[in-house]
């Protein structure tokens, strides 16, 4: 009797709508479970991509900074005891050059010799150097290096001028 009842119940369950609902529900759960697993798989993939991009980006920024943009600027303040060079330190004169030019305007033969012409060229180049140096002094101030250079140039100019004047007067 009891066995017959069980068989009957199983048969009823398999043939009833309730069975279809149960089976469908079970299948949906299984698919949702699978979908859920798929979703987890996609999330991990994107995290990995993002991490790779971040890593590559980080390395690129490091290399970029290292090779081109890695410029560090720092400003420091200190004091020292030294000389404040002033403009009146240097006195120059062009009397010699004026004398040579005025004499050579009179077409002296000595002014046309190769040696005199060579010295004249040297004098012109030196005067040009003095002009450039004056610009440097205006820009960078009367530091000892520039003052020394100015003295050297003026001495050289006076040496050339002296030779030329001696040639004119001889």
């Amino acid at each position, binding site marked *: 009797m009891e066995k017959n009842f069980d068989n009957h119940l199983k048969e009823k369950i398999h043939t009833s709508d309730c069975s279809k609902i149960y089976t469908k529900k079970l299948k949906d759960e299984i698919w949702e479970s699978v979908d859920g697993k798929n979703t987890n798989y996609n999330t991990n993939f994107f995290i990995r991509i993002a991490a790779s991009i971040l890593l590559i980006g980080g390395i690129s920024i490091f290399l970029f900074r290292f090779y081109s943009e*890695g410029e560090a600027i720092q400003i420091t303040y200190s004091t*020292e005891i030294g000389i*404040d060079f002033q403009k009146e330190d240097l006195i120059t004169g062009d009397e010699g050059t004026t004398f040579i030019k005025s004499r050579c305007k009179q077409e002296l033969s000595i002014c046309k010799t190769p040696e005199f012409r060579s010295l004249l060229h040297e004098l012109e180049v030196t005067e040009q150097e003095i002009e450039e140096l004056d610009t440097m002094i205006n820009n960078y*101030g009367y530091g000892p*290096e520039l003052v020394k*250079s100015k003295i050297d140039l003026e001495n050289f100019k006076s040496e050339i001028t002296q030779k030329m004047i001696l040639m004119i007067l001889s």
Partner: protein
Amino acid sequence: MKNLSLLILIALWAGFNSTTMKAQKTLHIVSKEVKKKLSCNAGSGISVDAEKSNIEIKGWDKNYVDLKMELISKHPKKEVAEQEVNYLKYDISEERGHHSIRNYFQNDDGFSTVKGSLSVKYFLKVPYSCPVDIIQSYGSLSVQDLDSDFQGNLKFVSGKIKNLSRNVTLDTKFGGVECIDIGGVFKAKLRKTNLTLSRLNGQVDIESRYGRIDIEDTNMDMLSLNGDKTKVSLFSNQPEKFNYHLSTTFADIKVPDSFGDVWEGKDSVHYKNINPANNALIRINTSYQPISIQVK
């Protein structure tokens, strides 16, 4: 008597205040330091175009250039030093792997002069094989330990170039340069420059107008020196290992007694010794200044 004392005091006061008496002052220094690393190898190179600067370059075993640049402003007033440091500008650029570094002056209005003193210092560590090219005016230069070509265009620069195994090319005006241990070809165009060469091992080719050239302890393959108003001295512990062709005008040539006679013309003096033929030849030609060959 009182008037005399007063006069003496006034004279002393005037003396202390004259422009010839330079008083020491506290100067404020504002320094802007720039640091950068640059890639460099034998195929590329580095150029520096510097004015009013001190440059130190050293070779090292890394594959990049380590640059440190200091832009310095000095003045008794801090605010002036602070303002004027901004007139010191610089560029660091790169084209096809070749790096160029430059400093220059630029003020706000374009015409006023500075009140203090401005200068720039460069400290560069470069790979041994990285070629270096310098254009520099007013300052000092030190280059050492390179296995690459070096070129310098220098004006009013006091320079020391040491331990360079490749070619060195110089173009200098109004300066003093000392070169020690140069392995390759040394080529120089000098004007009003004092040059000292020690322990050179390659060919040497020099053109010089005004100035002085001293050559010491050399092992050159060949020397060609075309000078004008340039004094030339060669010091060697074995001067007989070279052949000589020397000439000057309106001046003397001095050689060791064992070398024989110097030929003296009306205005010019010559010395020639080309035996044995396989000795390295030293050819020096100058004017108005002497040539001397001395045993060290």
